[in-house]
């Protein structure tokens, strides 16, 4: 396996497809950027697929090539961590529609120009189908799927679409559908991007002058939804930024303002505005119950997978009741389900931060499944 070019960091594969999309179009070929950690064992039984969130990527436990920061989930993935390359064969792929190397609006279409808005609208299930193609390529048939937020949606979709392939599923701070409020926040972000004159109908790649202002605003609005009010108050309160009194103007007087501006600006360095449009759309379309005749339990009938769900008490983006309705459906379907609401001051972001209880739960759950 050491000499197998398929495995390791910063890998990419172009598969011929065709990938039939929910929207009716066909994507061919399909490029998927991914990383693997650890070694696939002889009977290929130790594979863990990690599904990333909206603006995440394949660099789950390796240094990000643009920001130079450690992987986004080194708290969960690494030596001695619940997901451990010493025991597990770990796969993390960049979702299609994204901008970190997988097929998306920024990649070249057949005519050599970037797809831009010609890229077909995709769904969470399309992302999962592409991941399944990657796993076939890697020789992985059955797997454990783990993900938070949009990653959790992919895990749910995996269990529903490939019930005979998923052995265990960990869904953290997620939901089985996007609520009207979720869609509303995403629409604010999309409108901010499309209102930026530099968006140019999505055709900005040649200009080297992307709609950074719009994307930054989109990120600022979204970022608020990732935090809790208590967390924001604790961190910033109404403290002023580098001044003693308000400036009676529209500079960033408050620390929270400059914090958000920083979040927005640093985001545009590593993310593509069109990808933001496509991926938020995929999340908005997500409704696992609707895909299964309006009954969420039907999505899990016949699934042999064990499920573990975790929510955080201050997460108002995907609140506990969303996890609970998934658990109810799992119970109704007779699936083996665990669920716990953990306490954290950090809101939705808690799943990315230091959370010993989360690690303990995930570790126990994986080990009980023989992983």
């Amino acid at each position, binding site marked *: 396996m050491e000499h197998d070019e398929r495995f390791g960091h910063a890998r990419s594969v172009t598969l011929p497809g065709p990938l039939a999309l929910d929207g009716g179009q066909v994507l061919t070929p399909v490029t998927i950027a991914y990383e693997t950690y650890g070694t696939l064992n002889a009977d290929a039984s130790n594979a863990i697929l990690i599904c990333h969130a909206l603006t995440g990527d394949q660099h789950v436990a390796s240094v990000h090539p643009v920001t130079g920061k450690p992987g986004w989930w080194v708290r969960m993935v690494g030596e001695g961590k619940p997901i451990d390359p010493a025991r597990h064969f770990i796969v993390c792929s960049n979702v299609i529609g994204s901008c970190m190397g997988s097929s998306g609006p920024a990649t070249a279409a057949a005519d050599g120009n970037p797809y831009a808005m010609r890229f077909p609208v995709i769904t969470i299930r399309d992302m999962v189908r592409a991941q399944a193609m990657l796993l076939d390529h890697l020789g992985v048939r059955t797997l454990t799927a783990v993900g938070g937020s949009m990653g959790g949606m992919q895990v749910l979709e995996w269990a529903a679409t490939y019930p005979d392939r998923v052995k265990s599923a960990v869904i953290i701070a997620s939901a089985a559908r996007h609520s009207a409020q979720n869609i509303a926040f995403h629409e604010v972000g999309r409108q901010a991007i499309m209102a930026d004159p530099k968006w140019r109908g999505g055709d900005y790649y040649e200009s080297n002058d992307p709609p950074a202002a719009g994307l930054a605003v989109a990120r600022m609005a979204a970022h608020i939804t990732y935090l809790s009010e208590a967390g924001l108050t604790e961190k910033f309160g109404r403290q002023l930024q580098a001044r003693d009194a308000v400036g009676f103007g529209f500079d960033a007087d408050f620390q929270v303002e400059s914090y958000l501006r920083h979040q927005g600006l640093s985001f545009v360095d590593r993310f593509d505005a069109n990808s933001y449009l496509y991926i938020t759309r995929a999340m908005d379309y997500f409704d696992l119950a609707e895909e299964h005749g309006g009954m969420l339990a039907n999505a899990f009938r016949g699934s042999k997978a064990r499920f573990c769900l975790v929510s955080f008490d201050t997460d108002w983006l995907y609140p506990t009741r969303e996890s609970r309705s998934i658990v*109810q459906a799992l*119970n109704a379907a007779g699936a*083996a389900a*665990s669920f716990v*609401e953990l306490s954290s001051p950090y809101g939705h972001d808690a799943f990315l931060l230091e959370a010993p209880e989360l690690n303990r739960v995930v570790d126990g759950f994986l080990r*009980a499944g023989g992983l």
Partner: protein
Amino acid sequence: MNDQALLGLRPDLRIIADHVAAGSRALDIGCGDGALMAALRDHAGVDARGIEIDATNVASAVARGLSVVQGDADVDLVGYPSGAFDYAILSQTLQTTRAPDKVLDELLRIGAKAFVSFPNFAYWRVRASLLWGGRMPVTRTLPVAWYATPNIHHLTIDDFRAFLKERGIVTEGAWFLNGDRLTSEWAANFRAEHAVFLIRR
């Protein structure tokens, strides 16, 4: 089940563990950290699922590899389909529920049979405490002062028997405990600190 597995289990749980058929499916409601579920799984091959209200307990149980859902017996049993389990187990929880009668209905809907264990409020020490001390009793099975107790529907063994009769529920087994020792059925309502019933529709 062998003695080793039962060692360390609370006495009422030991009785339940002794009478759950190997290889069956059981739902333990108010499962705590999963001690009973783990014993049932490891030593009788029982497919055990749990519900527990306390997050720390749930995390402990999940870390043990058990399937436990954080939830409340009063509201979360409706999500389980009828006849999904061979046994529904409610140990030392009935007296903490808001609507014990509805919870019992749910137990017998979800499980073919149900184990119910509860502290007996007619136990002589409890009676003595109220009669002579004039204070709300604090005993081994009712260890918390009146203002902090989770118990909101105290009951006695005779209350429970009357309830079963009234609802036409069949008693398949009954065990009466003083501490960790079984006591006879004779005058159980007065002499037993704790009771375990196995019931069915």
